[in-house]
């Protein structure tokens, strides 16, 4: 909650200033009543008000430390005022007791008797005065807090939007790495001089793949048929780039084609197979993609020769991204594992069988 620290600090300053202004007002109102009485020196009512301001000030201050003002719902003003006004009887009674007791003491100090209107008039009068001051105070507090919160929210919203945009960009980057993009463009650029048709076809595939990776949310699912179509586009492009260095083998069970999987789920795994299996070696490697139904589960595998999991290897962004997306959709019901098979590496995904479109 680090970013709310400034929120908790700045209102306290604002409230302190408002508090001082309020009590200057109260002082003026209180001392005005004694201007005609020569037996009372002006410092006496002011002293009373000062004591009052301090006493209630400490009380309110303690309340603020437990941040009750900050926690009440500012976005529901009626509720906010209702809950604040609940304390009015208590506050007003305290106010009346201190004010009347204080006045008696001051008059006694000046050697005079405290003459006042009859109690049935004095008490309601002071109660109304206390209520008016309290409502004025609440109005000021509400205005000040609302403004501060609105400002903080605007900042937080800006930060959130920025983070969201960055996350989306990062996702795009993770899906289609710049290396892939630029190298493919270079391949197209080279092919144009020798085989325009092939260059054209490659460009169309790249566009298809790019379009697919730009659309759709993290939680979108597609039939495996569609996922494999995109995967084949990617594999075709890579085979064009790494001519003679890779062969692919697709072992897809027909019934699995209808199963739904998160869109672009396998892409990072196939990318890894090329990155570690093909791009790091000079021989001809083999990549095998398998999909099959196992009772009520869908099993997907991507194997590649040419690489091994080194001891102490750790999971990269692609695999982590894949795992996270499955976790969001299926919780613990989906698993991702990766293992060495001699001189090959195999990534396996197992997720609940699902053919219903959302």
């Amino acid at each position, binding site marked *: 909650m680090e970013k709310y620290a400034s929120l908790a600090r700045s209102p306290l300053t604002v409230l302190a200033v408002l508090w001082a202004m309020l009590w200057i007002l109260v002082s003026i109102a209180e001392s005005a009543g004694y201007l005609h009485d020569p037996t009372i020196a002006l410092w006496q009512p002011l002293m009373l008000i000062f004591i009052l301001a301090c006493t209630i000030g400490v009380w309110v201050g303690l309340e603020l430390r437990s941040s009750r003002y900050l926690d009440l719902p500012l976005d529901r003003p009626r509720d906010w005022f209702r809950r604040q006004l609940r304390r009015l009887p208590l506050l007003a009674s305290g106010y009346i007791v201190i004010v009347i007791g204080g006045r008696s003491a001051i008059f006694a100090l000046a050697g005079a008797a405290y003459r006042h209107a009859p109690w049935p008039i004095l008490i309601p009068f002071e109660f109304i005065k206390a209520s008016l001051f309290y409502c004025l105070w609440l109005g000021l507090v509400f205005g000040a807090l609302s403004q501060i919160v609105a400002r903080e929210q605007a900042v937080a919203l800006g930060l959130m939007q920025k983070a969201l945009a960055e996350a989306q960009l990062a996702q795009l980057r993770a899906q289609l790495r710049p290396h892939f*993009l*630029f190298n493919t*463009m270079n391949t*197209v650029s080279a092919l144009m*001089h020798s085989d325009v048709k092939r260059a054209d076809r490659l460009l169309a595939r790249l566009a298809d793949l790019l379009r697919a990776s730009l659309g759709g949310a993290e939680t979108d699912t597609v039939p495996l048929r569609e996922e494999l179509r995109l995967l084949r586009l990617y594999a075709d492009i890579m085979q064009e780039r790494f*001519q003679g260095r890779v062969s692919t083998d697709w072992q897809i069970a027909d019934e699995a084609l209808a199963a739904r999987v998160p869109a672009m789920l396998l892409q990072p795994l196939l990318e890894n197979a090329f990155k570690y299996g093909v791009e790091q070696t000079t021989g001809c490697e083999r990549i095998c993609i398998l999909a099959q139904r196992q009772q009520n589960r869908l099993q997907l595998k991507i194997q590649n020769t040419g690489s091994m999991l080194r001891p102490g290897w750790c999971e990269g962004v692609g695999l982590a991204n894949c795992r996270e997306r499955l976790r969001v959709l299926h919780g613990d019901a989906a698993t991702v594992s990766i293992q060495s098979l001699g001189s090959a590496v195999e990534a396996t995904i197992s997720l609940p069988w699902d053919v219903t479109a959302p």
Partner: protein
Amino acid sequence: MIRALIVDDEAPARAKLRLWLAKHADVEIAGEHADGLAAAQAIAAAAPDVVFLDIQMPGISGLELAAQLEPQYAPLLVFVTAYDAHALAAFDLNAVDYLLKPFEEERLRRALERIRERLRSPPRVSAAVEVARSQVGVSDRLLVPMGNGLRLIDSLAIHLLEADDNYVHVHTADQQYLVRRTLRDLLLQLGEQRFVQIHKSVAVNIAEIEDIAPLFKGDYQLRLRSGKELRLSRRYTDALFARTGR
């Protein structure tokens, strides 16, 4: 004639460079290679004037390969890369030539113009090698000649480096390689944290030192784990003791 070597692991990328370089009458293609090790052998064997060097390659990357070259004798290097923000910033800073994939013909023509200019001016220390070294850091592997070719050895497997004229004998536990480099330059590449000079012409792997015993006149006798005994020259004692904390 400018003798050019093309090094890229993707065939279409090589084809494009070959096609465009062939249009220049003063450029002769000295060879094409698909990985760093083959390229290193070709650089040693054919001594080309310029190498168009892809950065991302299997085995040994273009930057790693460049870091293995000796700055005084390296051919001109033009790095070719798709995307490598960090290295590009360093290239720009040190006026190292590079081509960004996909590049247009005009860009290659300008690169060639600069190459002609550089080849006319007297030879100088290769900025490209220096930058590649700073990007790669201390080399974990060293390219050494082996039979008719080259091989990569783990730099921690090296026990001892012994200078011999313009060559250095590189000793591992069971092998000895002769590398045409200066001791000074090899130490810079392998990192002076791992290797320490004990004599004008000898440096050892610090991890291989077993024991140091005093001799007369401030000299020391140094024994390696392999049992080999060497004289530690007085001039280098302070540096060694500072490094080993004795």
